[in-house]
């Protein structure tokens, strides 16, 4: 589904990704772990198509198509979803209006029929209940005044609503207490399916206790330096990044 080959990418002219290769198949959950500054967030932004994150070499193929040729909104309509580490606060746009606008923009781009306000509200309410998102939150401006945990829950709510094909979760565990973490993990696990691939980016092993990955990759200095099964995450937790990165060099 997703094939990244020898990817080089720069941010503000500085090379951050230096020959990254990764293959993710349908139905699989891959974890990408790495120390601070290894390029984890850069990878997520490059996949989502953020301006200023420029691919300078290699390729990203998604469902057989060159992903880099698509705008961020085209990627979303084709099923790419990035749950962000720092969801943006947008005063003046209510959460529900945002969800309806986004859902229908994606549907329109795919040639599907738009859903009316009542229909969207019904869909959002169902998902909100399972994620413990209070209805009152949906009436507030998007992410404005939300706690860290509320913002992350809203990201997962969006993921459940948009039903993406490829979901990238960037440090979804950061800033969450253990109860919030379990809730978010449950929400993510409920979305695991044979048609859907997930890339879970995290600094700590903690999240992977709840979202058990099929493969674990270690990202350091812009490249994947080690790969393994879920036990690799435990080894990282025990030994720290330093040894594994050194062994790989």
């Amino acid at each position: 589904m997703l094939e990244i080959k020898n990817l080089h990418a720069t941010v503000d002219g500085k090379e951050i990704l230096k020959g990254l290769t990764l293959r993710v198949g349908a139905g699989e959950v891959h974890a990408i772990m790495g120390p601070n500054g290894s390029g984890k967030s850069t990878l997520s932004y490059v996949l989502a198509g953020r301006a200023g994150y420029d691919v300078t070499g290699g390729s990203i193929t998604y469902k057989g198509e060159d992903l880099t040729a698509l705008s961020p909104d085209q990627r979303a309509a084709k099923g790419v979803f990035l749950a962000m580490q720092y969801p943006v606060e947008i005063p003046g746009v209510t959460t529900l209006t945002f969800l309806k606008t986004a859902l229908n923009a994606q549907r329109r781009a795919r040639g599907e029929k738009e859903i009316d306000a009542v229909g969207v509200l019904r869909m959002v309410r169902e998902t909100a209940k399972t994620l413990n998102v209070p209805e009152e939150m949906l009436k507030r401006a998007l992410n404005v005044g939300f706690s860290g945990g509320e913002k992350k829950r809203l990201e997962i709510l969006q993921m459940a609503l948009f039903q993406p094909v490829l979901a990238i979760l960037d440090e979804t565990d950061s800033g969450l207490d253990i109860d919030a973490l379990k809730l978010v993990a449950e929400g993510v696990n409920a979305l695991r399916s044979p048609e859907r691939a997930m890339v879970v980016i995290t600094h700590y092993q903690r999240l992977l206790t709840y979202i058990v990955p099929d493969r674990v990759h270690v990202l350091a200095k812009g490249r994947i330096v080690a790969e393994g099964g879920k036990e690799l995450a435990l080894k990282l937790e025990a030994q720290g990044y330093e040894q594994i990165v050194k062994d790989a060099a």
Partner: protein
Amino acid sequence: MNAIVLPHRKVEDWKYSDLRGAVDAEAVSIAPTAAWSIVAAKGDADIDDLPAEVPFGEHGAMAPVATSLATAGPSVRVRAGESAEIEFELTEPGHGRALIVVEDRASLTLIEKVPPSGFSNIASEIVIGKNASLTHLRILPGNEAVRVSDYAIAIAEGGTYRAHLADFGGTLSRTELHVALEGEGAEAHIFGVGVMSDRHADVTTHVSHASGKTRSTQLFKCIAAGHARGVYQGKVTVAKGADGSDSRQTAKGILLEDRAEIDLKPELEIFADDVKCAHGAAVGDLDAESLFYLRSRGIPESEARALLMRAFIGDAIDQIKDGKLRQAIWEVVDRTLERLA
């Protein structure tokens, strides 16, 4: 007759609105008296021609020109305790005068529309009585007109003036509000939005807190594209002895292109001891991070830009209490934003 000297950019108050560059002084001197019609009137109000004696409050440079050249104009009076809603349209451009009196405990909603072209210069006197209220809507469509409207507004004890201005720009478009909070507890709340491409819109205000416990709020939001120029000059003075007064001023702008310009100039002069005053102004771009967030959720760029612009000016429009009028302004705003995005 003496030649008219038009204010120009070397005159401090007109620095950002060069009237001399927008219209010919000769054309101004021979402009006719403006014609009005009443589109709709509800409730109880006396509508008549101007009386022989019309007060003349604090005004800017063009009001004396209007007063000396206009030969007629409308007068509206809402008698004590009555209420009315009146929609006016300026059907023929030119010099004009108007007198609006809202007597004690009366209330009036005044909706103003302007002609699509030509030069107009209107000086209006507004008198708001004790515990009376006036809600004043000015919707100025985007067009090639050169328009100056200058209001002197005197508010007695406990009276309230609410203004909602939506200006989509002209060749030169200037609204001056000179508000005198004369009686204790008088209030003025002024909300303005300017949305335009390649056009000009200027709101210049002077709110004078002459008595104690008076309140004023001003909120201006401006979006400028192309060669547009948006101007807000707002001066607040709090007189000696006007203790317990409260004044707030916020003006913000978004520049969509480098060639556009937004000039925000809030000013504050305080001579009283015990007052609360706050003012702030900022001009910026559409937030790139917000734009990316919306696009990453599938919202195409132009739609995402329109959504962010709508959110930016929304708090100034949502102050309009009447749902129908609010909706009417939103419709023009949405149409304009669609083009700008």
